[in-house]
């Protein structure tokens, strides 16, 4: 059974690994830059800038996302049932009770964010409260609390740092090729190969990075589904919540590309998506696959 401790530890280890990979990539790219231009200072500035931005957004993620989603805080008095559901599941998971917010939207959906369990936030839309019964609501909240307990915010933030850095580096590289093209003739012949490698890397790296980030996001969704189901010991409720939410056609205007991965279900409804290419670019696994995974679960 999942709790505050189990996945947190492995996630933190993986985050350090990601950071290590990230640092090696920075050093490697820095070396290539030095070879080609003899001066990596702009790159270093870009790296520091992107790390700073990402850490800021990680630290203030709760406030930023809540502002973006127009979420209103609720207390025990004005949303008693929701409050009790969240509080009781938090006790079962061994987490402090997160702050609870309601988003005034008809589309049923929910998300959790916050840098650590002490600053965690769970937000649900009014549509979710209207359409789901108590056990389905418990399923959704358990899924969100699993994200909090598993420290998924930490993992996804580090992934975003990595992608952000890769995009900046490749962008910078391509631009400098365009503007500083003449300089490479002064150097020796080795630069030609390095340059080709650099171009290939600059084009591929951000794409591969984005795919990796999305793959991580989908994996975390599966994990949160199964941890959440183990928390309530009732996967059927989560299955029926998933069915209700995915069959609901109401759009969610407060969601956008930067927050899409946070929601309980993909907030963009664009019909059935089955091609493998499309799947690669999804923030959430297809609902059918999530349901199939939950049905195969032995609780």
């Amino acid at each position, binding site marked *: 059974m999942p709790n505050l401790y189990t996945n947190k530890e492995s996630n933190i280890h993986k985050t350090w690994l990601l950071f290590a990979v990230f640092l090696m990539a920075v050093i490697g790219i820095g070396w290539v830059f030095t070879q080609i231009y003899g001066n990596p200072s702009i790159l270093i500035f870009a790296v520091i800038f992107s790390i700073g931005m990402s850490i800021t957004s990680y630290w203030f993620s709760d406030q930023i996302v809540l502002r973006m989603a127009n979420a209103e805080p609720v207390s025990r008095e004005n949303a*008693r049932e929701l409050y009790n559901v969240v509080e*009781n599941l938090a*006790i079962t998971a061994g987490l402090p009770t997160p702050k609870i917010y309601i988003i005034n939207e008809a589309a049923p959906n929910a998300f959790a964010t916050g840098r650590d369990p002490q600053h965690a936030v769970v937000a649900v839309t009014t549509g979710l409260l209207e359409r789901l019964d108590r056990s389905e609501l418990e399923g959704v909240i358990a899924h969100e609390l699993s994200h909090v307990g598993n420290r998924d915010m930490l993992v996804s933030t580090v992934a975003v740092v990595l992608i952000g850095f890769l995009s900046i580096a490749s962008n910078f590289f391509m631009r400098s090729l365009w503007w500083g093209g003449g300089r490479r003739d002064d150097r020796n012949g080795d630069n030609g190969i390095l340059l080709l490698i650099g171009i290939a890397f600059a084009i591929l790296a951000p794409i591969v990075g984005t795919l990796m980030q999305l793959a991580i996001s989908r994996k975390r969704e599966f994990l949160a589904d199964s941890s959440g189901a183990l928390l309530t010991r009732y996967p059927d409720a989560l299955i029926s919540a998933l069915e209700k939410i995915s069959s609901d056609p109401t759009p969610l205007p407060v969601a956008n590309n930067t927050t899409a991965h946070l929601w309980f279900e993909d907030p963009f409804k664009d019909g059935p998506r089955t091609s493998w290419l499309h799947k690669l670019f999804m923030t959430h696994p297809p609902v059918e696959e999530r349901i199939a995974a939950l049905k195969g679960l032995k609780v």
Partner: protein
Amino acid sequence: MTTLYIVLGALAVLVLWVIAAYNGLVRLRNRAQEALSDIDVQLKRRYDLIPNLVESVKGYMAHERGVLENVTKARTAAMQAGGDPLQRDKAESQLSNTLKTLFAVSENYPDLKANANFLDLQRELADTENKIQASRRFYNTMVMDLNTRIQTFPTNFIASSFGFAAQKFFETTNANEREAVKVQF
């Protein structure tokens, strides 16, 4: 010379492993301990709610003095039972049962069911009941982690030589305790 270094190296690894395994067991045991005291918090909340409930019900249920007395008695018994929540589990489930009887009997008093204060307390107690269950389940998870570590190879050697004992789970002994107090609106 090389053999000596290999032996010394292997010994150092072994010692480090013993330290890590021992510390891991201590950490798991402390988590289970903490989870147990979290149950106490919820049980105390129930003790605190009961006098108010009895007070608000007294006027309406003059003919059911026995039911009210049972609740009060069970509360006192649970509070005086002493020990951790696991040790007074019997007294606590006795208390749950008397509360259940009280709420069942209250169905016969329409005036009482119109009383906002009573309804509020009833809801609070139902929620507390859920929270007690939730904290027990968290404790059980922690105990499962600890017991698995104590019983599996190779940490079982460390556990037995330092006296770590497998701990008991909370089990719902009687069938009607599986269900929380029903609330009707």
